[in-house]
């Protein structure tokens, strides 16, 4: 717990933000997708002090002091959870090691990045920002809300396990691109992972043995401390993996060491959905519009969403921004529906399922009384090409309004709208921009 000295600071800053709003706001007349409940036509959503006060149909009683916003003809759904983003320049480990559990995306991200405005234009309200996949373990990820922010402390959200991020791991070809100290084969990759986890197990034992006697605690080890959290089930491993053998290796490692894992990308998930379902491992998948570009992802299929969710796997979507654009995560859901996923499951995958993967479902991911007032107002059917996100609300504050030209610019682009700051772009940038 020594590591969370900044927590009280964070909580104070959140409560300060929230106290600004007192009057309830009621949104009337929209089709509401609460996600955890049935869709409501001509629905009403009431929020106050950053929380959802009530969700119901037209008969819902609106407090007399409420500010009423007409949402007739619109669609309201929970804010979208992007379970895998690289916005803000999370960096992560460097070339000195293939395993970097001690590096934190938290320390690298620019909290005022343009990218976050792009995310808001796409209706994203919570992100898991991760270091890249060029290492077996590239560092600690960070869970953020798209609040107005000056410093990272304004952005982070502490989850039900008391942490505000997971641990990024990767297998397959990406971590084999490095030189000295990096693996050259898949078996070596797994061996290096196992070696580190064995050390973490021993370290954890020493801590447990010390009990309340702090004099017996082992010397602090920043590499092993976050892995103890992983072994304790507090910090989830977010595991980049594409091919079926690599998917199964990730599952095998998680079972051997008993850590909780979310598989990411999972390009060949459609081949091994039964094994994934049996292992009860959630999948955060990417949706791309055409195949290719990366050899180990060649067998990607847009049926992954359908295959995994039908098998009962907890399935979520991610952008991997800049691989796909934060403004298009909702389109990934539509393309998955086109490939056979049910609309209901696709909406869950955009919201509540991601929340569960980040241990945040008690606060976000659905429109329910008492949850954070994170929601989006759409111009129409979430799966239509013509639909736009018109408003994005985070904790009861309107953070994006398409009617505001400055906000809209981050949706459509234009002259000098986006910064040319290179750090804003994902670490795949060298590949994207090489020609």
């Amino acid at each position, binding site marked *: 717990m020594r590591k969370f000295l900044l927590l009280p600071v964070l909580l104070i800053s959140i409560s300060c933000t929230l106290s600004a709003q007192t009057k309830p706001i009621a949104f009337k007349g929209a089709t509401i997708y609460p996600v955890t409940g049935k869709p409501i036509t001509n629905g009403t959503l009431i929020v106050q002090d950053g929380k959802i006060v009530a969700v119901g149909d037209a008969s819902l009683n609106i407090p007399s002091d409420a500010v009423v916003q007409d949402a007739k003809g619109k669609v309201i759904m929970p804010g979208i959870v992007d379970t895998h983003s690289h916005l803000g320049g999370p960096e992560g480990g460097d070339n000195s090691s293939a395993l970097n559990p001690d590096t934190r995306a938290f320390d690298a991200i620019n909290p005022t990045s343009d990218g976050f405005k792009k995310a808001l234009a796409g209706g994203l309200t919570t992100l898991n920002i991760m270091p890249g996949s060029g290492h077996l373990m590239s560092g600690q990820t960070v869970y953020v809300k798209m609040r107005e922010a000056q410093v990272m402390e304004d952005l982070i959200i502490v989850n039900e396990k008391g942490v505000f991020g997971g641990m990024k791991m990767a297998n397959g070809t990406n971590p084999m691109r490095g030189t000295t100290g990096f693996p050259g084969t898949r078996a070596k990759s797994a061996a290096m992972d196992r070696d580190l986890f064995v050390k973490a197990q021993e370290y954890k034992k020493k801590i447990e043995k010390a009990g309340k006697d702090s004099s017996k605690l082992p010397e602090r080890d920043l590499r092993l401390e976050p892995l103890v959290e992983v072994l304790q089930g507090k910090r989830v491993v977010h595991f980049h993996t594409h091919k079926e053998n690599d998917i199964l290796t990730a599952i095998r490692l998680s079972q051997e060491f008993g850590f909780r894992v979310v598989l990411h990308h999972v390009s060949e998930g459609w081949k091994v959905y039964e094994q994934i379902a049996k292992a009860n491992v959630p999948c955060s998948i990417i949706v791309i519009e055409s195949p290719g570009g990366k050899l180990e992802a060649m067998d990607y299929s847009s049926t992954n969403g359908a295959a995994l969710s039908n098998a009962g796997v907890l399935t979520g979507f991610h952008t991997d921004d800049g691989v796909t654009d934060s403004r298009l995560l909702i389109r990934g859901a539509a393309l998955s529906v*086109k490939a056979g996923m049910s609309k209901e499951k696709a909406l869950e995958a955009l919201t509540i399922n991601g929340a569960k993967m980040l241990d945040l479902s008690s606060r976000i991911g659905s429109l329910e009384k008492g949850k954070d007032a994170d929601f989006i107002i759409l111009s129409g059917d979430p799966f239509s090409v013509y639909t736009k996100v018109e408003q994005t609300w985070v904790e009861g504050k309107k953070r994006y309004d398409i009617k505001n030209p400055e906000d809209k610019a981050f949706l459509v682009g234009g002259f000098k709208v986006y910064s040319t700051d290179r750090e804003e772009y994902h670490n795949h940038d060298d590949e994207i921009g090489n020609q």
Partner: protein
Amino acid sequence: MKQIHKIISCLLCALPCMALAQTAIKADIIYTVSGSPIKNGVVLVKDGKIENVGTAKEISIPKNYKIVEAKVVTPGLVDARSCVGLSGALNIPTDQDQLEKSSPIQPELRALDAYNPDEKLVKYVRDYGVTTMHTGHGIGALVSGQTMIVKTKPGKIDEVTLVPVEMLAMTIGTTVQSNFTSPGTKAKQIAMIRTELVKTQGYMQKQNDKDTSKHPAIDLKYEALSKLLKGEVKALITVNTTNDIMNALRLAKEFNFKLVIDGAAEAYRLIDEIKAAKAEVILHATLARNGGDMVNMTRESAGILTAAGIPVSIETGFEGYVPKTHVLLYEAALAVTYGMPYEEGLKAVTLNPAKLLGIDKRVGSIEKGKDADLVLYDGDPYEYLTNICKVMIDGIWVTENCK
């Protein structure tokens, strides 16, 4: 080249001999693109060509025609500029032939020698309705090589080639400097292009000398550049920043060549200049990545340029990573979502590029006598949840699965 033309024309003669079933396509709505949409319409296909199109009342379907029904029919889509077929899906050195990095100016490189009709992505774009594709050498060199036009149907290179030499692919921008040690600056990029074009002028002058002994030895580079200066091919210059678009316009004026501005991310800032120069525009994918020279792109460009009277052709362009290409139909759909009129969106991926590429007598609209390149949908073509059910190229069904 003449031989290739011969081969192609022979093949075209041979096509109708393949005993095609004559087909009648009935649809709730037919977007001919050249005219108004036809409700409750019929397209008759005979011998690989469109025999007739009109309303169900106007057209009687001959008895021996096989009837196929669809909700919506559009012309086969024309991708104004792609690298598919030279740039493969695997993205490994053996399937990346779009950019030769041995020298920044190589106009002699022919697309015909590199295009792979069996490439996985060719089938992929075909299944999404692209029947004609302007493809070839990529972006990233001052002159990367030639482009060509193909039909996306299965077949050997000569069978699928529509135009073997279409344009010279050129790029001015920061990407060139990342691929070569020289040019290392913007001014050097322009100086190098100008130097080669001045040399080409000299080469052409010598060729015209009455004294044949003074004729220069044949040089493939200057032969190719001569075609540009003689107006036989257009320059397809990928330029995105305001500065670079102006550079391209200036070069075209100085050397009097036909210019197609490709990419054109900031063209919306230079509408008057582009119109005055009579330059044509191929616009980047609506959802292209807004990085590098394209950082100032806007999704509203297609709508803005169309409203200003500049015909817009939308491309899928080049993608260096995941995903390896775009779905052209969605690029048009998004252009419409962001302000382009509905039918202009279809035009931008059919008739406009067909005209720009000089192939509108063959493709780009549903008109009597044109190639029977058709796409059948089960709903609004732009919608994500609509399926492309059938694609026909030259009268033959090439895709019959719903996609």
